[in-house]
């Protein structure tokens, strides 16, 4: 299974690299927010508060839309062509997820580099920990995205996912912290798992490691990833996926 995952990952990376534009496109929206909204935000808050929000937005848009590729692969019969080989079905999922995670890593590094140029100053351990959080979250999101893509009618995937991403980004408090929100909105936002991840990342970027917020963020990220990968595995193992 590991070999098949690796084989599919390598292939996915080579295809992704042929379409470098795709990687850049995924990171354009968060970069626009960084450049055109960041300087305004910086007058009332700090870059260390904003940038984690943009990273979560990037994660949601980049890996959340990962399933789009498999919609095409299913329609074209590519997925079925692979499903008649002895390769494990879990590997067919994990190889794809790994490719999405690597794309997300490149995009996040790009975003962080620009953020540093604008004035982000976060301690290295905090950056590294935040990075791990977004990578694990992204792996879960990609798996979930594949599961949704294979379960929904193919025409529905793009509109449903691109609409779902907007409230998830807003409710995570990506642009303005939820502490500024009225009570009812703050209450709703607690449903979104991304809020906990984001708040943990903000603490980490400010050098606060042993806080309850960080603990909650790590726990939510881990549970989210496990649940999503389980769902993804189930769907990939299902006969008609």
């Amino acid at each position, binding site marked *: 299974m590991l070999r*098949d995952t690796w*084989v*599919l990952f390598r*292939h996915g990376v*080579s*295809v992704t690299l*042929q379409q470098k534009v795709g990687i850049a496109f995924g990171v354009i929206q968060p970069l626009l927010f960084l450049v055109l909204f960041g300087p305004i935000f910086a007058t009332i808050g700090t870059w260390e508060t904003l940038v984690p929000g943009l990273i979560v937005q990037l994660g949601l848009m980049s890996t959340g839309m990962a399933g789009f590729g498999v919609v*095409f*692969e299913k329609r*074209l*019969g*590519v997925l*079925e*062509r*692979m*499903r*008649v*080989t*002895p*390769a494990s079905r879990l590997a067919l999922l994990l190889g794809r997820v790994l490719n999405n995670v690597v794309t997300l890593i490149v995009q996040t590094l790009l975003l962080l580099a620009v953020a540093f140029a604008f004035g982000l100053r976060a301690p290295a351990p905090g950056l590294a920990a935040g990075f791990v959080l977004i990578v694990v979250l992204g792996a879960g999101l990609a798996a979930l995205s594949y599961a949704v893509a294979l379960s929904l009618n193919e025409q529905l995937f793009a509109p449903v996912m691109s609409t779902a991403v907007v409230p998830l980004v807003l409710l995570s408090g990506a642009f303005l912290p939820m502490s500024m929100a009225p009570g009812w909105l703050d209450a709703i936002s607690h449903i979104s798992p991304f809020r906990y991840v984001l708040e943990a990342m903000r603490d980490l970027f400010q050098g606060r490691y042993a806080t309850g917020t960080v603990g909650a963020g790590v726990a939510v990220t881990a549970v989210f990833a496990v649940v999503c990968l389980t769902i993804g595995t189930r769907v990939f193992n299902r*006969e*008609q996926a």
Partner: protein
Amino acid sequence: MIKTSGLSKTFDGGVEAVRSVDLSVEPGQIVGFLGPNGAGKTTTMRMLTTLLRPTAGTATVAGHDLIGAAKEVRRHIGYVAQGSGMPPVTPVKGELELQGLLYGLSRREVAARTAEVLARLELTGLETTFPAALSGGQRRRFDIAFALLHEPALLFLDEPTTGLDPQSRANLWDHIRSLRAEKGMTVFLTTHYLDEADALCDRLLIIDHGRIVAEGAPAELKSGGRTLDDVFLDITGRSLREENALSGQGA
């Protein structure tokens, strides 16, 4: 090479697509699987290729139990679906390599097998192009190439020549015949075309309403000076020629 007993598939919602099919295919045969649209051809084939789980019955495919040893079955069969399994915008070469590796071959083996299979199917040199630039016949031969990399003993073809011009169809028939003659491969194919069934197949199985309703060599089925279309009409109450004309596929 294939032996099924009571093989059935009832879909969620109660549609009985395949009802207790017993069929057997001997090694080295080219067997045609015919039936009107919706008769259960593709469902049967998808069960035999491990893509669908039967709701009842048992089967041995390429020497292995279909249910208990699906992975072993996959190792020994090749399957070409109705649609092309090639992404249009990536060169075929990379996809072929991926397919070979997923079949468990080493990179060196993949290179050797790819060269051999492409030469056999007269595709050498075309592997660096994009599928979008290939002709219908070339695309179909590439689809078959994907299914031959691991040298399967048994090849499943789902409507291999649908949509091809007469020349490409005849060319594909020659390739299928030579796979059997030179490699001893067993071929199980569905088709809409009675002339194809007649010219290419050693044995025919006719399925209707999820049941095998007739089987035999084309000559046996045609005994008494009837055409295959007469036979088909008698058995299924439908003319395949008319169906093909209706669905715009020609016969």
